[in-house]
């Protein structure tokens, strides 16, 4: 029972982090129909930027995080303006490959600036042990979860109530109609990329806080696919539920079965979901059968 509670808690915290990464992914897909293979690298850049602001420059950490977010917004806008905007209306393979190219460039930049060896993250989140229901959880994980939940809630509200959020949904639904209503689709795309970059930067900082800053963070870029497919590619709620389910699945299989099965099982789930319900749990159903 104790181990079960332990695994559940670990799984939940892992899951919220996955959900956070997945959310940036869903955001871009929702607003611009782009499958972003560079999501892991956005995470990497976010983590290293925070590291640079807090350690290399030596800012007080709230200021450092804020500065990171500002840089993230600028980077997001730049990427949209100079790379993704040219891809509007291109075929899927072109869009996918352009994000893959982007991921390669971002990874090279990060590696050349900060090197390839991992670094310890400045511990600005308390990292003791907290005991819940007799199970021990690291406090930094708990904090990460709390922040992630707050962010997820914030983004949900943003999409439902803010003007930009509603415009984003309009663009995602029908670009033509949105344009004729006076919404600037380019501006919305820029918004989507900068928000995605911000969420990736925060997620990157949170994850780096737990596992340290290293190139392995980019691996989240691939781990996010089972999450978004399970939850539905265009659903924020789906990203949350999918993230938590996959997080639990990974932790249970890793804990009870082992043999590295936790690395592959999400992908098996992915294939199964694609075969029986390609639009995921909460995604919008628009599959054309041939």
């Amino acid at each position, binding site marked *: 029972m104790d181990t079960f509670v332990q695994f559940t808690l670990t799984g939940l915290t892992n899951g919220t982090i996955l959900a956070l990464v997945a959310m940036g992914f869903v955001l871009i897909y929702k607003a611009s129909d782009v499958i972003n293979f560079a999501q892991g690298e956005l995470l990497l850049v976010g983590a290293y930027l925070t590291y640079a602001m807090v350690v290399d420059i030596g800012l007080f950490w709230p200021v450092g995080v804020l500065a990171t977010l500002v840089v993230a917004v600028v980077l997001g806008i730049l990427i949209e303006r100079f790379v993704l905007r040219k891809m509007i209306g291109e075929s899927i393979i072109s869009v996918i490959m352009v994000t893959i190219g982007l991921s390669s460039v971002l990874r090279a930049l990060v*590696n050349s600036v900060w090197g390839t060896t991992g670094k310890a993250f400045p511990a600005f989140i308390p990292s003791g042990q907290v005991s819940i229901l007799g199970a021990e959880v690291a406090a930094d994980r708990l904090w990460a979860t709390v922040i992630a939940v707050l962010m997820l809630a914030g983004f949900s509200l943003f999409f439902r109530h803010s003007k930009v959020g509603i415009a984003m949904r309009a663009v995602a639904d029908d670009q033509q109609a949105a344009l004729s209503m006076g919404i600037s689709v380019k501006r919305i795309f820029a918004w989507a990329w900068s928000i995605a970059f911000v969420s990736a930067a925060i997620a990157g900082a949170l994850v780096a806080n737990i596992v340290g800053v290293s190139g392995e963070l980019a691996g989240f870029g691939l781990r996010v696919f089972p999450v978004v497919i399970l939850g539905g590619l265009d659903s924020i709620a789906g990203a949350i539920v999918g993230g938590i389910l996959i997080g639990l699945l990974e932790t249970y299989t890793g804990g009870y079965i082992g043999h590295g099965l936790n690395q592959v099982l999400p992908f098996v789930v992915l294939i199964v979901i694609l075969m029986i319900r390609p639009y995921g749990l909460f995604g919008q159903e628009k599959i054309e059968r041939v």
Partner: protein
Amino acid sequence: MESGIFHTTYRADMALRQTPAEKVRVVLAVLLVLCFPFFADRFYLTLANQIGIAVIGAIGLNLLVGYTGQISLGQGGFMAVGAYTAGLLTAQLGVPWYGSIPLACLATAVVGGFFGIPSLRLKGLYLVIATLAAQEIILWIVTHWDAVTGGVDALVVPDPTLFGIQMNTDFRFYWVIWGLAGLTILVTVNLFRTHIGRAWIAIRDQDIAAEVMGIGLFRYKLLAFATSSFFVGLAGALIAHYRNIVTWERFTVDVSVTYLAMIIIGGLGSVAGAIFGAVFITLLPVFLNDAGQALRGVIPNIDTILPFAEQAAFGIVIILFLVLEPRGLRRIWDRIKDYFRLWPFSY
């Protein structure tokens, strides 16, 4: 002086090579491939062999992605199937290397066909993600099935010999690789003059229309996956016997991405494009390295920057091609040809 190519018979329209200049170019290319090893040193021979393997793999992938329109990120996994099948057959069951290569191709075709099954229901980006999952699952099996593949340890393959002669020197294996590459080119070029190739192109252009015209989508999609994987498996099997050693690191998702980059930079839906792309991507790091060495005096810490410069250049090249010339090197080559053919009255 000509202003274009005009056919007056169906035979001329169907011909593989349509102008005298094309025939001359093919002869020149074949002569180049035949003469190259007698003049090249070991470094360039190794490079030529790498290119040959990449050509086979890229043509295989282009069959699927460029001609049939089914985007696949599973290339690395399928190559791993080919390489491990060939390696294991030779190392553990004692099958001679020349026998293990076709068997490995068939095994890869079967695996490729199996992972092609989702293509019945999935299109576009969903298929990309499904093939990505295939890649991850295959690689996981390779690294965790210790009893057979040796897990993360390298699989050592005995030297291939033919009539008592050791074959895997750069010079001797060159003939194996480029012989098979030539065969691959010949088969695929002709494949698109048959009903199968045309069916694939029809599926790529409009799958619903293709089905209406009587093309069994599932059958032809599976066939595309199997045929493509057959050639990809060939590339993998050649790697196993050429390198003597099979490790999982050679077949990660990065490999899938590299091959996709080859066919995009070369030109989707074109055998020549796949060849151009394979040559370009294989030579890119070599050129960068040479450029880096030349700039050694100018930039002080060039050695630390170089590996990252390669990675960045790879990404930048992909982005630039997609933004500036989405139809790739093949299109650039066509434009150059047209310019000279129609000169001076091109308009």
